[in-house]
């Protein structure tokens, strides 16, 4: 595998995303391919990669039409990159974007490629709607029929009900049939996360995001798309009073998760450019930061009495141990806000001695973090969360924060469906 004599540092050169849009708003008519292409072309334009043959482009989408089987490659073919640039799709639920970056980074580190793009895209406005399962079986049978008679006989089995009941993609766990919000509600109860604490985190996310827009931070990390120049989920004037007025969304009686402290369904795309230091130098492109290491964990939320979105709580201590650093040795913490409660449960778990001993198998808990370093540029509660695009958004944001600071270290933590979590460390 190893084509280089030693491991090479992986530089983050830049990122590009389109503004994120709440489902069925500005991007209602846009496809995954439209959005991914726009983000890719923006990255290519900014870094003058026209006609460049890159090592690879890796991206994915959680909700995908079957015609998009080669989504990333098709998107590359719509850009001004050299069309001899290979591409492939990956999918690891909300971890897709960051996992894609780890895949590209590993190949760069090992010497297999010099430069690559990683990212993701999602739309819930243009989601694939599958036909009714019984109707699908009938159609497949008709398709297998050798004679017209056989085909017609098979089709005669179609009933109007089958046409009226298409299968919509659902944001729920196949094994528990619970939605992600319902799962997170259970976690909030297990960790006693107060409603007010969740609302405060949501408020801070919008406030930080608005301030970060106001200082022009995102101008070179985004391209306008379909009339948007900033995320349309952002509410700069959001207040605790407004959030307090919202009703529980997943548990009508005694629930604490609301539409305000949970991410809405969102459309968007984000990509990042990764390369060796030599490649960056040869192309006269400044380096924002380095992708140091990544870790992916999974938990048994079906039989194992663990919360669906708790995998990052395991992944982070494992990675810290490998790197020989403490949870407190960071200047920035980027914890993806699928739900405010997810972030707060993770932080609570890291402070809990019993949990550390019994679950994480640690003598001492990772401990508390300095909350003023958490999601300082806003996160998913403000931007919205197009599943596979979130990793690219966070990675580029963190890299630029570190570049601004000049020196430092940042942690990324992203929870994903199926009880998974992808985390990474970025340094400069």
């Amino acid at each position, binding site marked *: 595998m190893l084509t280089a004599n030693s491991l090479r540092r992986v530089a983050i050169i830049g990122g590009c995303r389109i503004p994120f849009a709440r489902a069925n708003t*500005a991007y209602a008519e*846009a496809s995954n391919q*439209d959005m991914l*292409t*726009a983000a890719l*072309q*923006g990255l290519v*334009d*900014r870094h*003058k990669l*026209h006609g460049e043959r890159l090592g690879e482009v890796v991206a994915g989408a959680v909700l995908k039409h079957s015609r998009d089987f080669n989504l990333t490659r098709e998107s590359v073919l719509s850009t001004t990159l050299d069309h001899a640039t290979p591409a492939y799709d990956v999918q690891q639920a909300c971890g897709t974007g960051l996992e894609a970056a780890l895949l590209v980074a590993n190949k760069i580190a090992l010497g297999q490629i010099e430069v690559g793009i990683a990212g993701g895209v999602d739309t819930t406005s243009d989601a694939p709607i599958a036909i009714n399962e019984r109707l699908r079986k009938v159609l497949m049978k008709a398709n297998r029929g050798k004679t017209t008679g056989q085909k017609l006989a098979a089709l005669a089995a179609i009933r109007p009900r089958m046409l009226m009941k298409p299968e919509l993609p659902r944001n729920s766990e196949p094994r528990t049939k619970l939605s992600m919000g319902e799962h997170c509600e259970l976690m909030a109860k297990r960790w006693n996360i107060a409603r007010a604490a969740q609302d405060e985190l949501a408020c801070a996310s919008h406030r930080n995001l608005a301030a970060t827009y106001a200082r*022009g931070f*995102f*101008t*070179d990390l*985004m*391209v*306008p*798309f*379909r*009339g*948007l*120049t900033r995320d349309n989920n952002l509410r700069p004037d959001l207040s605790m009073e407004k959030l307090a007025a919202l009703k529980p969304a997943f548990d009508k009686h005694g629930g604490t998760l609301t539409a305000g402290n949970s991410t809405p369904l969102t459309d968007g795309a984000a990509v990042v450019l990764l390369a060796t230091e030599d490649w960056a130098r040869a192309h006269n492109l400044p380096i924002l930061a380095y992708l140091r290491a990544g870790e992916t964990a999974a938990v048994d939320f079906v039989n194992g009495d663990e919360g669906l979105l708790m995998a990052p709580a395991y992944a982070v201590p494992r990675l810290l141990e490998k790197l020989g650093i403490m949870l407190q040795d960071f200047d920035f913490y980027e914890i993806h806000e699928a739900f405010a409660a997810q972030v707060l449960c993770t932080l609570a778990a890291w402070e809990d001695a019993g949990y550390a001993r019994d679950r994480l198998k640690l003598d001492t808990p990772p401990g508390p973090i300095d909350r003023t370093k958490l999601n300082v540029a806003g996160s998913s509660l403000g931007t919205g969360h197009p599943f596979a695009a979130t990793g690219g958004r966070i990675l580029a944001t963190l890299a630029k924060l570190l570049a601004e600071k000049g020196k430092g270290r940042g942690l990324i933590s992203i929870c994903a469906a199926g009880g998974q979590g992808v985390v990474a460390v970025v340094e400069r």
Partner: protein
Amino acid sequence: MMARDRYLAFANSPFGKKLTGAIGLPQPTPLERFAPGRPDLLGPVIVGAAQGGRLAAPLAELLAAAPVATLFHGEYAGWTDIAAQHRLMTGRFDAKSSGTVGSAVFDATGIADPDDLAAIYRFFHDTIRSIARNGRILVLGTPPEDAPNLAGRIAQRALEGIVRSLGKEAQHNIAAQLLYVAPGAEGAANSSLRFFLSPRSAYVSGQVVRIGKPVAQDTDGYDSHAPHAGRTVLVTGAARGIGAAIAEVFARDGAKVICLDVPQSTADLLALAQRIGGERLTLDITAPEAPKTIVEDAMARGGYDVVVHNAGITRDKTIANMTPDAWNIVMNVNLVSALRITEALLDADALKPNGRVVCVSSIAGNAGNLGQTNYAASKAGVIGMVQGFAPVLAARGATINAVAPGFIETQMTNAIPLTIREAGRRMNAMAQGGQPVDVAETISWFADPASVGLNGNVVRVCGQSLIGA
């Protein structure tokens, strides 16, 4: 009281919309105008340029200050570097995925040959359908007389035809202008770029503006949101109509306004001055001692920064039927008194450094009009006055320019017989009359302390009227 455009209101009622659409009548929609608190610039902005353009930096500077996001036409990939330097958001324009935009700007200053004009064709061919209602088209050129050779001169002159046609084609209240920026005057373009990309220029379309060598250094501590802060402005004929709107706009943008009008209008003048925190100056500008009185007022205030010659009257008759009085009074009010007052102020050094004189002409001054030999003579004379005075004022670090309103909804136009009035209102690219504020905003732009490169211009505020164009 402002005259109302009943057809405009009807055509925008639910029933009226249906009916006018069904029978093919014009369907004008009210122009979107500036109001404090609303965005200053109409974004996002699609940018394009021919090789060798000179205005990328001033444009990027303006858009970054707003801030407004930009999209670049595929042939203008160099914009990404300029945008990055100015911390300006940008992305490649794509007709399918970019959505609608507020404005499209093409920097044609580098066009050196008629063959190169195809670049501007391609730019607008690709982008025009993406410009939103009430949007803006702006083409930036090099004054033909400043082009280095014959081919350049011809190509630059051709821009006028393109822009005037775009103004007529774009529809939906989209305004189109051509800004000729002389080499070396790029730094003086800011206030004009801002005006023509903003809702303030709502009723100005199909105009050609020249920005030349700056007459003064741009003033320090200047705030584009209150450009007239701390300045003293004289407005003649301020009691009503366009004059009252001028006074209001200057006051809104920070000025102390001296509202001048005849004794008969004292009540209106008093109310206006109170409303805007201004002063009154009650006199007839044709009176022999008027220039002297005005100079005294100016000196008592340490001089005027801006003088707006707005007072004007009509006494319409065909020349055969016109009395000598009707000839004389129109010439005196509209032209001669403005000339005398300007001369007196200059003689007394009562116009402050970086001062501004703005005159009000009329499209009748270009086009002439049946029954208006006197009026058209006076308004054409105003154009002569502006052009003649321009070098004199430049030598003092000041400027003089004129607006030429088309059909503006005021008591003056309300006095026109209905059928003629209706024709005047609709015969322009916006299919409606302008409001006094449209003229006022244009005057305020000429008077802006940053408009140091505008001198000797006549800009029509006429919705690109067919008359006299």
